[in-house]
């Protein structure tokens, strides 16, 4: 089965509101990364966490390896936040880190 379960698959927000994306893991992950796919198709790195929380502007992410989940909180959503967000969990593989992606969350921010 899937090692990374990302939810929700789609999210609609009005400008100025907020919500949270979540990734649950079926096994212990070494670290997690969150990305946003921009209009050109590039994966923009938002966060890398090996533990704890990080905040950058209106985004905040948390990672709990023991409880096997990570979250990405968006507050005061803006139109330019629209896009597809992915989490990628890094599992240890033969001394290396192997990223396993969630299926993505398609976010649409409405005026």
């Amino acid at each position, binding site marked *: 089965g899937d090692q990374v379960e990302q939810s929700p698959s789609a999210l609609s927000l009005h400008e100025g509101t907020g919500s949270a994306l979540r990734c649950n893991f079926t096994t212990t992950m070494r670290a997690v*990364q969150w*990305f946003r796919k921009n209009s050109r*198709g590039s994966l923009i790195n938002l966060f890398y966490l090996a533990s704890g929380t990080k905040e950058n502007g209106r985004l905040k992410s948390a990672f709990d390896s023991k409880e096997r989940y990570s979250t990405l909180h968006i507050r005061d959503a803006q139109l330019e936040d629209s896009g597809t967000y992915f989490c990628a969990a890094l599992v240890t593989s033969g001394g290396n880190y192997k*990223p396993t992606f*969630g299926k993505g969350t398609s976010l649409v921010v409405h005026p």
Partner: protein
Amino acid sequence: GALVYQYPRRTICKSGTSMRMECQAVGFQATSVAWYRQSPQKTFELIALSTVNSAIKYEQNFTQEKFPISHPNLSFSSMTVLNAYLEDRGLYLCGARDHGANSDYTFGSGTRLLVI
């Protein structure tokens, strides 16, 4: 900053032919390179994980015979899709990582392959 360039951005090949795609890391050492395929309606499937000067580890359902990968130095990797068919179409993504402590993966924009 760390950047990864992939080329070509888009390509079309005839069914049964082969297509080579390249991945260039700039601003950091690409000790590990991970190649993915995103098929239509699917998430990113890992094809293989390569560590420079070490063996390339392929995931289940992907083989070296079909997706040979080269990772000759700390800035470059290439992958070829041999004998491409319709089911091979999709976005091929490479991500690279420096083996420094707490180092994340940086991804390119992908090579979109269309098979006709």
